[in-house]
């Protein structure tokens, strides 16, 4: 995909996106609703023609090739299963269109239903299936046309939490089994992080950052990525000194140090981000972290594995997440000294309002 732009009138739904997805990769587009990710997916599948730029699938330019002739299969958010057909008929539809014999269709459909663990459900009507089963029928139906790329438009958003987590593993397993490229879009960072080989974070039609989940989480390149992927404590201020890839930011909490991957110059506006799990009460810190700040504990939320400690300092809400090895959480309404190491903080320019 090269410099793809899709315009609807003056509105740029997808703005200058360039990206290469490797064969067999599980790639996710992550972004808030309205960021253009669905449009991008529809562009890949051929329902939307790019206003500018080139889209290639397997090296072939897709210009002017309709969705019915592209080597892609799309799984719709609503699944769009055919309600008047049985499960097998749904799965076999693509093959029927291609004029394959009834027996061949049937055999292949059964095989695919096996892949998605629905082996003996073929004769059922769609409305007799549960949400997760429908999901798998949609996947089987899409796989039946032997696409090079499978596109998934938030297919899990309609499921309840438990099923969603189960289907994440299922999807990943199916992808490994069939070995084709999956392009997945979601606004749920958990889905994106757990399933994807790589993730592209989108915002207002632009691709903000592409990388593995770990890269996005540990080394966000923009303030948007830092705050959208996972939780982060944001501390705005002015850059004072820089040295060796690190910088000092003068914030309301006092001077704080962090990594400076963007090479920000002294005097510029910046935001320092710290993940909640790196922001700990001083007593719980094993090492001797460089950054300290005074805060007041307002709320404790015990969530089993972890405890969320909400604090307020200088009128700002800060979140610390204490794991089981981080000692006793502080009591509410007490003063606490929070600390974090400078390698765990990242300093980025403030989010522009695009």
């Amino acid at each position: 995909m090269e410099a793809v732009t899709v315009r609807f009138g003056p509105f740029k739904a997808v703005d200058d996106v360039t990206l290469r997805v490797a064969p067999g990769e599980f790639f996710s587009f992550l972004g808030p609703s309205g960021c253009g990710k669905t449009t991008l997916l529809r562009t890949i599948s051929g329902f939307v023609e790019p206003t500018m730029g080139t889209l290639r699938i397997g090296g072939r330019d897709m210009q002017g090739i309709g969705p019915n002739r592209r080597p892609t299969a799309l799984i719709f958010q609503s699944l769009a299963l055919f309600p008047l057909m049985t499960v097998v008929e749904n799965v076999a539809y693509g093959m029927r269109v291609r004029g394959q014999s009834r027996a061949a269709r049937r055999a292949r459909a059964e095989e695919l239903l096996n892949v998605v663990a629905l082996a003996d459900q073929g004769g059922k009507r769609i409305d007799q299936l549960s949400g997760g089963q429908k999901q798998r029928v949609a996947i089987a139906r899409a796989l039946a046309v032997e696409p090079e790329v499978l596109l998934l438009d938030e297919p899990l958003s309609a499921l309840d939490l438990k099923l969603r987590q189960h289907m994440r593993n299922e999807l990943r397993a199916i992808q490994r089994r069939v070995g084709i490229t999956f392009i997945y879009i979601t606004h749920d960072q958990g889905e994106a992080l757990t399933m994807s080989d790589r993730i592209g974070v989108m915002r207002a039609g632009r691709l903000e950052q592409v990388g593995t989940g770990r890269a996005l989480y540990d080394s966000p390149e923009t303030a948007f990525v830092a705050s959208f992927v996972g939780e982060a404590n944001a501390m705005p201020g002015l850059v004072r000194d820089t040295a060796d890839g690190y910088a000092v930011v003068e914030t309301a909490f006092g001077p704080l140090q962090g990594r400076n991957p963007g090479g920000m110059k002294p005097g510029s506006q910046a935001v320092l981000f710290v993940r909640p799990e790196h922001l700990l009460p001083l007593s719980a810190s094993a090492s001797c972290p460089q950054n300290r700040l005074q805060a007041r504990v307002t709320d404790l939320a015990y969530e089993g594995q972890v405890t969320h400690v909400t604090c307020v300092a200088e009128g700002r809400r800060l979140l610390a997440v204490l794991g089981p090895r981080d000692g006793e959480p502080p009591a509410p309404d007490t003063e606490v000294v929070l600390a974090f190491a400078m390698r765990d903080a990242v300093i980025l320019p403030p989010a522009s309002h695009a």
Partner: protein
Amino acid sequence: MISVVTGHRLLVAVPFVLVALIWGWLTLERRIAGLPPRRGFFKRNGWPVGIYLILAVALWLLGMVVLPQLFMVELSFRPKLPFNQIGGPRDVYTLENYRYFLFGSPTSSVNWNAVHLRALATTILSSLFITGFNLLLCYPIAFYMAQVATRARLRLLLLMLIAPYWVNEILRAFAFRVIFASAGLLNTMLLGVGLIAEPVDFIGRDIALFSGLIYAYTLLMVFPLYNALDNVEAAQIEAARDLGAPWWHIHLFVVVPAAKAGIASGCTLVFMLATGALAAPLVLGGPSAMWFTPIVYDRFYQVFNWPQGAAYAFVLLVACLIIVVAGLRLLRLNLSDAAR
């Protein structure tokens, strides 16, 4: 043989017995299904509204639809008598009106009543054709309205579709006559362009009649279709396309099955109304055209034989119902689907 007086009593009783039977059946069905009895009708609506609703529906349905129809059916089994003999000893139930329809004579059954029988057959076959043609004509329009058009375009289209129907039916029929007449608009235009050397007899060849009838019922086809197609999820059409289906395959195997009920509903409406059309056949029918409805009309107002007219009307109704039910069976639908 029951007398006419008993017949009349039975007639009035029939609707009430029917209502009671249906009510009883529904209650029994709920009980068998183990559902709790429904909250009282009057409790839900209050006494004044409840009584009004029952009276209004009863008056409308029984008084204005069911009873008159039943009286017509009953009338069709009675002989035509001078006024002073009605209710007298000669007023007995008979099949002579139906015999007349079949054999052209109230008593003999030697020769078939070819003219009337052929008219009925022509009417039904023509109506089937009109229905089919209308479906082909309206499906793309309805599909465009339901799936493609923007809101503004849809409003414009609706206005364009509805506006012509503000004109009276008979006036519209005459407008078609003006268009299709020998020296009419269409012939003048075609002659002027040089496409034809002499005027085409559109009316004599029933082209005018068919056009008029098809046009008369487009709305009745468009709206049920539009309604049904509007309910077809757009994503399903896209899914079929994404799976590689060409457009005709999508329509044939995804859209049409989903819109089947609406199609049946539109077809039933158009077919029933086309067979019962009166104005268009009278105005646009050529000399050879023999639509059945004008014949029925003539029984009443030319021959002044109301019992015979009633018999003819009943024959038409039953013939149409048979066709409709058969058609629905063919589509694996029942009457309530078509009424949606």
